[in-house]
């Protein structure tokens, strides 16, 4: 069953398109990573899915319903980010009680155990928590609510290394015990890629990739060696990135394609070049970097 179906989804603010003709669908009981650069439209997309904001055109269906103003979508989904607003009059313990009141699958026992593990005080107030603690508390609500659609928008903002690791582990464990559809948007692809099944990469409001994570790792490869040889090899190939890494040595990231005579890896190895795998996080950066700035931030300083 498809939990989310978007077709030609567009959202514009003051005629500026934040999401542009976005079409994709997400299957039930999968963990999808939503990645993209700052301002790519990740949060906007997630908020439309959660029914917080309205799309300008196109269609979005969550559990086969339009998400805006749908009670069923709201009851079966939760949107977790560091901006979640809770009434300042309620203590943390009471907030957990409220979550229990609203979400039918809520696991109070799990919430309590996580609450104690992360050292929260039931009498504390949400607006006085530190950044990392706020994210941790929101994450507890998100996990314990056991919503069929759980959306985490940058869930690890402010969390320290140890808590981030704990969070991913808790998420994975709870997902295995109680499968559900989870979407995580994150900048830390290296950290999340182990738990993801699919990746949805968006850039400037448009979809770039929507693939299983295993295929992302096989999507491109890095080639390093003598500049001339490399350039000859990558000619008429889809080059995502290239950089001088020393005297007469060039490193290039090329999209793999099986068409033509043998794979690019074989050709490179035959030519005596070094072939490396490309980290997913690097691949996403290469894919979303604009053509005019292929040299990266260095270009800014080189040409003035």
């Amino acid at each position, binding site marked *: 069953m498809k939990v989310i179906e978007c077709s030609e989804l567009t959202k514009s603010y003051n005629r500026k398109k934040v999401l542009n003709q976005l079409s994709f669908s997400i299957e039930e009981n999968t963990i999808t990573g939503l990645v993209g650069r700052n301002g790519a439209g990740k949060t906007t997309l997630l908020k439309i899915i959660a029914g*917080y904001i309205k799309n300008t055109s196109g269609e979005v269906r969550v559990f086969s319903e339009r998400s805006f*103003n749908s009670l*069923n979508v*709201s009851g*079966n989904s939760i949107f977790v980010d560091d901006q979640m607003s809770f009434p300042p*009059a309620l203590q943390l313990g009471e907030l957990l009680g409220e979550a229990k009141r609203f979400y039918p699958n809520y696991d109070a026992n799990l919430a309590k155990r996580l609450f104690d593990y992360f050292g929260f005080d039931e009498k504390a107030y949400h607006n006085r928590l530190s950044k990392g603690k706020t994210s941790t508390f929101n994450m507890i609500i998100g996990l314990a609510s056991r919503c*069929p659609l759980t959306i985490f928008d940058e869930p690890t903002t402010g969390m320290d290394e140890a808590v981030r690791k704990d969070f991913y582990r808790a998420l994975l464990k709870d997902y295995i015990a109680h499968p559900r559809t989870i979407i995580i948007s994150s900048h830390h692809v290296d950290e999340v890629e182990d738990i993801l099944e699919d990746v949805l990469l968006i850039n400037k409001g448009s979809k770039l990739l929507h693939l299983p994570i295993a295929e992302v790792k096989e999507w491109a490869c890095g080639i390093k060696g003598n500049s001339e040889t490399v350039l000859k090899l990558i000619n008429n190939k889809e080059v995502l990135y290239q950089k001088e890494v020393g005297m007469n040595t060039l490193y290039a990231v090329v999209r793999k394609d099986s068409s033509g005579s043998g794979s690019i890896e074989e050709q490179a190895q035959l030519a005596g070049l070094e072939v490396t795998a490309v980290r997913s996080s690097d691949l996403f950066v290469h894919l979303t970097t604009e053509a005019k700035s292929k040299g990266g931030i260095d270009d800014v300083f080189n040409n003035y």
Partner: protein
Amino acid sequence: MSLTTTSLVETVKNQYFYKLKANIDSFSSLVGIQSLAMLFSLGGVGSSGFSGGDISVNIKYYSSDMIFVFTMIWAFITAITITTKPYRNYDFTFVTNRLSSSLANVLFLGSAGLLGAITSVLSGNLLQIISALFMDEQLYHLSGGSSHYILGILTTFFYLFLISSIGYFIGTLVQISKVFVVIIPVLFIGTLFFQAFSLKEKEPFFWNMIQFYTTETTVSLFILKAVLTTVAFFTLATSVLNRLEVKR
């Protein structure tokens, strides 16, 4: 994870109890504002006197009139407050849609109005007791018994509910556009003088509007007028809020 169907009634109920807790501050401000009004009323809200020969009589009236007016202001402000962005966002952290959020708001304002009505009517008694005990005045108590109180609470409640529906509507308008922060006071002050200076012997328009409610002597008719107006304002506000996005 299996899907669950979410019922509107259940959600409104949950939201209502959530709001009672979340907006606890509005109840403490009710206590504050009524105490203040009580303080102002200690000297009596009105007095008259006459003397003839050796006798001089001075009558002071101790009633909850001032407390009632203050409670009305409180109801108005409370209604505006719960339409503001943070308060709307609290709802969307948990399960809701815009309709259930508005319905729960109406229920909350109703409960707040009822509490305000009961406390302001009963505070009249407290005021009289204080004046009798501490101010050494001879107390003549006028009361029609329990039906008097019930009627008082009922009409006070409908006034408060009406005022909060107006506040809710105005708050909603301000949420769509900040222009209304200017327009509404201008319109209000404008209506105060509208027709007031006309040559024909007419009462000011605003005064007529108030009298439409306040001079109604039949309770059932008054309730009908108040309820219809309240429903109209809440319906308008709800239909406007129904399109508002959650931005935080």
